[in-house]
Each structure stands twice: as C-alpha cells, then as structure tokens.
C-alpha cells in the first residue's frame, strides 16, 4: 500500500504546526499530543479520500478542531481554569516571561474565541473560511475575533494586563 510514504511525508511537514495549533486550542501541551495523535489516526484512516480533496490542510484542520471538541467532551478532560504553571515546551528565541504572559492570556479566552483567533491569525483563514470550518456565521466570527483581541489586548497591556490576570486567577 503506498499511502504510508505519502502520509508520512505529510505528517513530517505538518506535525509541528498541528501540535502548536492544538496547544493554543486546548491550552495544554500534553492534551495537545493526544489531540494531534487522534487527528493523525483519523487522517490516516481516511487518507485516500482526503487526498482527493482540493485542500488536505482544510480537511486536517477540521479534524483537529473536531478532535478538540471530542476531547473536551470527555469528563476527565474538562477545561480547567488557567491557574497551572506554564508547562509549554519552547524553542530558544522567546523570552520566558513574554511567552508566559501570552500563554496565560490565550488560555484565559473562552474556547470559541480561542478557536477563531487561531484559525484567523495562525492559519490565516478569511472570515468566511473560519465560519465554514467552525460551522458558525461570519457575524459570529467577526464578533468573537473582536472580543478575543480586545481581551488579549487588555491582558497583555503593560502592568494592567498582568495585574488583571492575576486578579482573575484568585
């Protein structure tokens, strides 16, 4: 069967982005590994059909987001408050305190806003593409994007952001 080399090539090219996306979506690097593994297992099972599609990334992205939904529905995987210490593995080149501030801010967003921000600004999707991926209206995408960016802006503003987040965590 020749799907395995093609699948492996795709995974090698994309697994880092999928893991990073999953981290931002679920706010937990360990859960992100599970989500990516689940996504790739489903991709492999449907590889022949998926590769006939115009945009494999779009298909994979939807699986990833749906895996995130499925994962959240499991009772032992409920969202927890963003009060745990940062355990995100990082490559060199980013200041730890800056990474911690952004990580805390993104985790403080409601899951819906987090998804919209990730799809719009990490995957560079249009409003229409994001709406189609998530099965919501373009108006909802716009309002959630606006609310998410406003929340991130408040959280990341010097002094105010840190003080505000620390207050929310108590």
């Amino acid at each position: 069967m020749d799907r395995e080399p093609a699948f492996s090539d795709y995974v090698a090219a994309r697994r880092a982005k999928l893991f990073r996306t999953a981290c931002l979506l679920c706010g937990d690097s360990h859960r992100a590994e599970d989500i990516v593994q689940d996504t790739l297992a489903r991709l492999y099972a449907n590889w022949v059909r998926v590769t006939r599609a115009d945009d494999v990334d779009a298909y994979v992205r939807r699986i990833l987001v749906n895996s995130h939904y499925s994962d959240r529905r499991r009772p032992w995987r409920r969202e927890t408050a963003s009060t745990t210490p940062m355990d995100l593995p990082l490559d060199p080149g980013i200041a730890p305190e800056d990474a911690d501030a952004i990580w805390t801010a993104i985790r403080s967003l409601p899951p819906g806003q987090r998804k919209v921000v990730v799809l719009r600004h990490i995957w560079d999707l249009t409003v229409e593409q994001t709406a189609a991926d998530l099965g919501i209206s373009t108006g909802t995408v716009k309002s959630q994007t606006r609310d998410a960016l406003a929340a991130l802006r408040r959280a990341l503003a010097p002094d105010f952001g840190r003080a505000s987040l620390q207050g929310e965590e108590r």
Partner: protein
Amino acid sequence: MIDDDVITRLVDLHDHIKPPETPFGADAFRGCRRGSAGSPRRDDRR
C-alpha cells in the same frame, strides 16, 4: 496598531512552541492497526 502587536506576540509564541521528539506519524499508524474499520478509538466517542 495594538491589535497587530497582540497578533505578532501570539504568532511569536506559536512559532516557538517546541513539538515533541516522538514522530506523531508512528503513533497514528499504531492506532490504526490496533483499531477496527479505520477508526481506532471509535468506542471512545459515544
């Protein structure tokens, strides 16, 4: 533009997240072989 700065910082964090060393592909292959009919964890999703 402040939103640009927020997005830049978010993208910067994203770009510096370190993926695990273990190849995900290998895990996915094992999952498919272990399961049935192409959905290795179907029972988990009721």
